[in-house]
């Protein structure tokens, strides 16, 4: 006969063993030993926290009530594990490369680090997990009471107080081993080792009970099968909807349960462990569920009809007087319950502290965490309090619900709640189009339906939901009845709720994602998550301590300069009471360093650089974007500078050119002034001299008088011509000229010009192509002639060839008519080419006539006519090109 005290002693010893194992594993991991801590076997065993007390005790009860249906709870996860290649591999890779700390973190990170989403997921997870934790406490308390009934001599502690002691013990254990280090991403070797041990214990216990039942009680396999065939669960009558629905639900929950995410993704040491777990874990689940139906059938046969089938695993050995086996069975149930509570508390506390407590604390303290430097302690405290809070919440729920049968049904309700994360999570890692708004709306819709159709009704009619809502629907709307949404009557309530919540969740998620637009951060994160295999090698471990300081020093030397950096580091080390140059990379020191560095490279860059070395984590996208912003600003600034300097250079060059031209023109003006005074003076002198002769000399012959008068007349004409030219130019330049537009062929115009300018006289040959000149012109022909005459007479004046030849070539370029006047002289010197069209320019020192206004006038005329005249360098001699635009050529054709 097992006394209750003995049982308590055994449990305490067992807990002490767990403590020792956890402590030893932590120590071994700290010393870098214990490769076996990171073996795939440990990983597979740690996954077994899926099998809670609900499995250990509840599966038999489940089977006793509804036959093989309980298998769905284990077949779903088995299929997920066998198909690890599809989803789990990606989840684990993302979790490792993004340093994900929880499922809330995964979803929020994917959708642009939205804290709102994280809070929503956390709250839902807590709502879903609390009844589950309560269930574990209840099962331990019930198993105690089962022993108590067999031990009438001892005073029976109330179920409530047992549950409280269990809760306190679990909270203590979790706080001790679950929050040793702040970095939630760091592996909890102690905890994982402990739950691996518990996995072995519970499997062994259940198998032992199974073997005892089959060979000890039933008398062999054949006998057992016969008993099953005779029991009330002899026939296979699982409704298809529940068979499919529950398998899918358990598969979804397996991926989404916070505690499963914790062991599967966060605690994952090596991706290749998944390979082993992919077959080993289904095998584990198979073994766990192997003896469930035999135990149920034999229990139903042997136990009194009012016995709770949930406790057959315990009560069968007790009734048969197998105390050792009963204690083993008790330990199995105890293991299942405790390992689940511990991991769930760690997972939930990480979520609670990271996404709810810390943001609130940071806001309350005015976001001064960066300055104060004690965030570490606050975060640890927050996590510890969250653990205590989560376990306490479970206990409170247990007390409130009264520990009735209602609790047993909570397992599947809880599954359906966390399954709401599935669309947002799977959509997030497989579909880049998934947006934050979609995830948010999907989660809200799905969880609302779940709350309305499953969670609230699960407390029973009239408990949290009035009876008439069940009958008539919310506000009397019949399509809103919680068990018959949209008039789908007669469905199993659980399948009904799961179907509608998941369907509406997915519809809302996809629909809103399609019409909303993601923020840049979301798009970046989306790409990183969905394409995680393209740009992530598995991330390495952390390097700690002084190695980081050294890296920091190397980096700082590059940025701050060697002596400054060394001084800064040495000072920090002295402050920490350390010799040498390398201080501990404390939060305080890192902040100072970051501030110091940000002076050189900008805040965001400094943060990114420091966190890259110290965090060991990949730089967050936010950091990168800030860096990109800063860089973009700098680049923009420098490109602006470059543009400005180019502009300045250009302006300077233009100014220099203008200055050169001005200087040249001023010289020309000087030259002109002396020239013009000479030009004016010469005829004036002749005029004065000859008019004086005419006036003062009396005995002049008629011939002489005639001669002098002719000279005077000629000189007067020359003066007039000079003044005419000046006047003409001034009129043209002021734009006051009135064009007299006529029709005529180019050939006629040229003919006239050649004859006016003296034709082929004085040995100058003019070569023309008359056919090309048959072009109708529509312009001011007189002005055009003026230009041509000027060009021909220039050639006549300046061509220094022995046999001067002028070639007039007419071509067309595009729509323009080009008329080139080329002579065979030595041409215009290069340095003069740019000034020949300026006023008062006279090329060379020759004694040619004219005041240097001819080409200026030509240029002005051509400008008025809409064409141009340019000097054509590189010809055999001086060459001018007259360009007439199309309008003047075409109009008459």
């Amino acid at each position: 006969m097992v006394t209750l005290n003995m049982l308590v002693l055994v449990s305490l010893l067992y807990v002490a063993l767990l403590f020792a194992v956890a402590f030893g594993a932590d120590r071994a991991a700290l010393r870098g030993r214990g490769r076996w801590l990171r073996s795939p076997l440990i990983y597979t065993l740690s996954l077994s926290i899926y099998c809670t007390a609900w499995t250990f005790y509840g599966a038999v009860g489940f089977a006793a009530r509804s036959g093989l249906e309980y298998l769905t709870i284990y077949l779903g996860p088995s299929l997920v594990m066998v198909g690890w290649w599809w989803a789990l591999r990606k989840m684990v890779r993302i979790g490792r490369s993004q340093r994900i700390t929880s499922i809330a973190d995964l979803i929020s990170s994917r959708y642009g680090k939205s804290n709102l989403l994280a809070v929503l997921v956390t709250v839902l997870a807590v709502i879903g997990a609390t009844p589950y934790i309560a269930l574990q406490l209840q099962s331990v308390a019930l198993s105690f009471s089962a022993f108590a009934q067999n031990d009438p001599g001892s005073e029976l502690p109330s179920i409530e107080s047992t549950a409280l002691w269990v809760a306190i013990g679990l909270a203590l254990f979790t706080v001790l081993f679950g929050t040793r280090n702040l970095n939630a991403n760091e592996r909890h070797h102690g905890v994982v080792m402990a739950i691996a041990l518990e996995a072995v214990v519970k499997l062994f216990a259940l198998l032992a009970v199974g073997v005892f039942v089959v060979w000890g009680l039933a008398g062999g396999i054949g006998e057992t099968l016969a008993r099953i065939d005779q029991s009330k669960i002899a026939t296979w009558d699982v409704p298809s909807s529940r068979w499919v629905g529950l398998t899918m639900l358990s598969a979804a929950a397996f991926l989404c349960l916070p505690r499963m995410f914790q062991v599967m993704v966060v605690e994952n040491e090596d991706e290749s462990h998944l390979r082993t777990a992919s077959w080993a874990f289904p095998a584990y689940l198979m073994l766990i569920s192997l003896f469930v139906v035999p135990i149920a059938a034999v229990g139903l046969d042997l136990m009194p009809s009012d016995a709770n089938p949930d406790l057959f695993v315990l009560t069968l050995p007790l009734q048969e007087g197998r105390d050792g086996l009963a204690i083993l069975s008790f330990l199995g149930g105890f293991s299942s319950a405790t390992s689940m509570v511990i991991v769930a508390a760690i997972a939930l506390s990480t979520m609670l502290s990271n996404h709810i407590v810390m943001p609130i604390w940071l806001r309350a303290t005015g976001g001064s965490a960066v300055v104060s430097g004690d965030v570490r302690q606050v975060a640890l405290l927050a996590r510890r309090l969250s653990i205590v809070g989560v376990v306490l919440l479970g206990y409170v729920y247990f007390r409130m619900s009264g520990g009735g049968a209602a609790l047993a049904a909570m397992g599947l309700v809880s599954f359906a709640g966390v399954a709401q994360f599935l669309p947002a999570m799977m959509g997030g890692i497989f579909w880049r189009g998934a947006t934050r708004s979609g995830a948010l709306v999907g989660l809200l819709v799905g969880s609302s339906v779940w709350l309305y159709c499953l969670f609230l009704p699960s407390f029973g009619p009239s408990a949290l939901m009035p009876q008439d809502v069940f009958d008539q629907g919310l506000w009397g709307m019949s399509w809103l009845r919680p068990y018959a949404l949209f008039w789908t009557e007669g469905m199993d309530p659980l399948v009904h709720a799961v179907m509608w919540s998941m369907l509406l969740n997915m519809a809302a998620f996809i629909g809103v994602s399609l019409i909303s637009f993601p923020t840049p951060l979301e798009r970046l994160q989306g790409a990183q998550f969905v394409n995680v295999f393209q740009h992530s090698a598995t991330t390495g471990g952390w390097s700690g301590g002084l190695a980081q300081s050294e890296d920091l020093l190397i980096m700082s030397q590059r940025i701050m300069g060697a002596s400054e950096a060394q001084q800064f580091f040495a000072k920090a080390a002295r402050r920490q009471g350390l010799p040498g140059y390398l201080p501990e990379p404390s939060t305080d020191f890192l902040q100072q360093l970051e501030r110091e560095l940000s002076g050189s490279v900008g805040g965001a860059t400094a943060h990114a650089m420091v966190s890259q070395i110290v965090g060991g984590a990949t730089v967050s996208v936010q950091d990168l974007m800030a860096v990109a912003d800063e860089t973009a600003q700098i680049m923009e600034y420098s490109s602006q500078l470059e543009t400005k300097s180019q502009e300045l250079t250009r302006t300077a060059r233009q100014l220099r050119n203008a200055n050169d031209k001005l200087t040249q023109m001023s010289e020309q003006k000087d030259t002109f002034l002396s020239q013009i005074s000479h030009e004016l003076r010469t005829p004036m002198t002749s005029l004065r001299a000859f008019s004086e002769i005419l006036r003062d000399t009396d005995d002049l012959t008629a011939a002489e008088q005639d001669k002098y008068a002719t000279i005077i007349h000629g000189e007067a004409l020359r003066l007039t011509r000079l003044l005419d030219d000046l006047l003409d130019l001034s009129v043209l330049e002021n734009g006051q000229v009135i064009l007299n537009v006529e029709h005529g062929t180019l050939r006629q115009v040229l003919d006239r010009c050649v004859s006016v300018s003296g034709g082929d006289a004085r040995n100058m040959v003019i070569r023309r192509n008359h056919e090309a000149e048959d072009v109708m012109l529509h312009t001011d022909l007189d002005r055009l002639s003026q230009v041509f005459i000027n060009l021909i007479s220039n050639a006549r004046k300046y061509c220094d060839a022995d046999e001067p030849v002028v070639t007039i070539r007419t071509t067309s370029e595009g729509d323009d008519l080009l008329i080139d006047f080329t002579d065979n002289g030595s041409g215009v010197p290069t340095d003069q080419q740019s000034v020949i069209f300026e006023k008062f320019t006279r090329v060379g020192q020759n004694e040619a006539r004219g005041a240097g206004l001819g080409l200026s006038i030509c240029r002005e005329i051509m400008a008025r006519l809409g064409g141009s005249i340019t000097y054509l360098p590189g010809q055999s001699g001086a060459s001018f090109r007259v360009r007439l635009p199309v309008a003047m050529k075409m109009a008459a054709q």
Partner: protein
Amino acid sequence: MSEDAPKPLFLERATYRKRRMGDAARLLPVLGIVLLALPMLWSSQAGDGILTTRVMGYIFGVWIMLAVLGAALQAYLAPDDRKADSSKDE
């Protein structure tokens, strides 16, 4: 045979086999789903239902087969140098 030939269109036998085994590993859950859905379609001629023991035997058989096949495939596909060497001897 040039040294810098482009990626061959067809793989050598061992690599080809490995890829097909990868496909098999990916399709294993599909096989599992189909096999586990099968009992829903069963009905007894007598009308008194299929025996639980028979369905149980079938499901556990499928379960064991999935685990064994999974283990075999993972062992074959595991990135292992020794395997890569010996694969030439096939």
